[in-house]
């Protein structure tokens, strides 16, 4: 086949940075299409973690000794890199977390002390469970009413209904930038503007968007934005919450402990300023530093180049899948989503397809993708989700397509 692609990335050189891509799974070369769950890790990021424990390991922000200062500087440099990446105004608006779920719980826990039973909050029907359950817990505590923006058959949000849900009692809206199960890129600028027009605040779950789209939190006027490092070539167990300074200042602390205090007395403890107020305990220091390195790595390649190439993969895979026949693809058209294709082979269960693909060395996600409301909407138990990254290739998509054909012939 003639290569008609227009991208400028040197995919072979990029692939050489990811040692895991050389692995064999069940005797077959690994084809890793579960990037929306966890992306793979380049050697540069692995080296950063090894280097930290080999040379710089010490607790941060506390010791006067040299190692502690080196570790502190490296960690704070990472925070600054993340600030610059998302174009936050201040580095102290970047709170290190254990990941997106942690960031959402942090904000929901704070608002549990700020809302009451006259308030309303709005979620969408296409959220990951981690952007539903913490808010339900918040509503149980405060009595605030939870309203839901419905979705359409095309896997997009029904924004007319959103308009009718907004009113002067609305205090918070929480919505994903990109749907994890379908890949839909939501029109967040419009949603943010409408939210602000009634005086409410918005939290955007950026976990699925951040690997593909560089969000400018100031230009978009985002109140809270949460991401996970492990979806953007970084390590697991680390992420950040961005929050506007005045909103983070007003939010009560999430966890108590060391690092988050100004002064402790048994009659009254005062809390530290941002970001430390929300960073109780010794953090994942190597993880934070490695997250910074992962952002450097992706920015060196370029987010626009990454998005263009991934779109090429998505269009190719979608066309090949449709050609197989008896395939139902869920979600919106390729132009309106990230490199995710969520589908079923008619008459089969997603687990069966996923299990057989695994035997052929192909990793995909199957099931409800922690988004049961979407599956209930489509009246299905789950889908097969193939999610692509900039280190994947069309040759891998060919192997995946052959795998789906084989699985289909075995199962039907």
């Amino acid at each position, binding site marked *: 086949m003639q290569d008609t692609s227009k991208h400028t990335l040197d995919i072979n050189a990029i692939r050489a940075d990811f040692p895991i891509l050389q692995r064999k799974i*069940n005797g077959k070369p690994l084809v890793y299409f579960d990037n929306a769950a966890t992306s793979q890790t380049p050697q540069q990021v692995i080296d950063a973690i090894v280097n930290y424990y080999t040379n710089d390991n010490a607790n941060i922000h506390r010791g006067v000794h040299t190692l502690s200062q080196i570790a502190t500087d490296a960690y704070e440099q990472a925070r600054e890199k993340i600030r610059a990446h998302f174009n936050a105004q201040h580095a102290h608006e970047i709170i290190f977390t254990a990941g997106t779920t942690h960031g959402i719980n942090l904000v929901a826990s704070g608002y549990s002390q700020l809302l009451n039973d006259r308030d309303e909050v709005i979620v969408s029907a296409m959220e990951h469970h981690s952007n539903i359950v913490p808010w339900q817990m918040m509503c149980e505590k405060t009595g605030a009413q939870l309203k839901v923006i419905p979705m359409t058959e095309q896997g997009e949000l029904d924004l007319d209904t959103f308009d009718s849900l907004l009113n002067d009692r609305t205090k918070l809206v929480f919505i994903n930038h990109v749907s994890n199960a379908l890949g839909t890129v939501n029109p967040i600028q419009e949603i943010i503007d409408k939210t602000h027009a009634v005086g409410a605040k918005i939290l955007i779950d950026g976990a699925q968007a951040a690997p593909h789209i560089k969000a400018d939190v100031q230009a978009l006027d985002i109140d809270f934005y949460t991401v996970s490092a492990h979806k953007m070539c970084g390590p697991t167990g680390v992420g950040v919450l961005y929050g506007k300074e005045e909103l983070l200042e007003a939010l009560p602390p999430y966890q108590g402990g060391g690092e988050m205090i100004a002064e402790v007395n048994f009659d009254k403890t005062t809390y530290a300023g941002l970001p430390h107020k929300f960073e109780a305990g010794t953090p994942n220091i190597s993880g934070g530093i490695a997250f910074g390195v992962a952002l450097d790595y992706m920015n060196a390649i370029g987010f626009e180049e990454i998005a263009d190439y991934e779109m090429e993969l998505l269009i190719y895979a979608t066309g090949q899948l449709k050609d197989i026949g008896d395939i139902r693809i869920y979600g919106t058209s390729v132009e309106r989503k990230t490199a995710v294709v969520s589908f079923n082979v008619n008459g*089969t*269960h997603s*687990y*069966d397809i996923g*299990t*057989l693909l695994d035997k052929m060395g192909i990793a995909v996600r199957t099931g409800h993708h922690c988004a049961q409301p979407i599956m209930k909407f489509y009246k299905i*138990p789950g889908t097969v989700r193939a999610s692509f990254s900039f280190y994947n290739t069309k040759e891998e998509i060919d192997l995946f397509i052959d795998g789906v054909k084989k699985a289909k012939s*075995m199962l039907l």
Partner: protein
Amino acid sequence: MSDIKEIQEEIVDEFSMFDDWMQRYEYMIELGKSLPMIDESYKTKDNLIKGCQSQVWVKADYKDGKIIFTSDSDAIITKGIIAILIRVFSNQTPEAIMKAETSFLDEIGLKDHLSPTRANGLVSMIKQLKMYAIAYSNR
């Protein structure tokens, strides 16, 4: 009717004939397709086994001192696994089911080739069959 041990040995023999895991899966899919389906009216919450990723229903009937299991799942490979278990455990006395070991599943390598969540489902399924046996042994 063969006893549980003999049936297990038969299954181990059958699985040893295959060269690779794709062939074993092909066989399990065939078994799954041949499994007598449970009547729709018995696909109730009570008959649903907890701990399985795909939905699995099991119904037990007691006749002439033996338990007859029927079962179904929405996933075909899961049905294949169930078919193996039903072949071993159905039409046996409660006492035999209670006492039965399941090391044959390790011998055919099934547990190693299931994802952890599916392996948990398999354990839940065996537990459920044994619970039925305990319940009927008290009659």
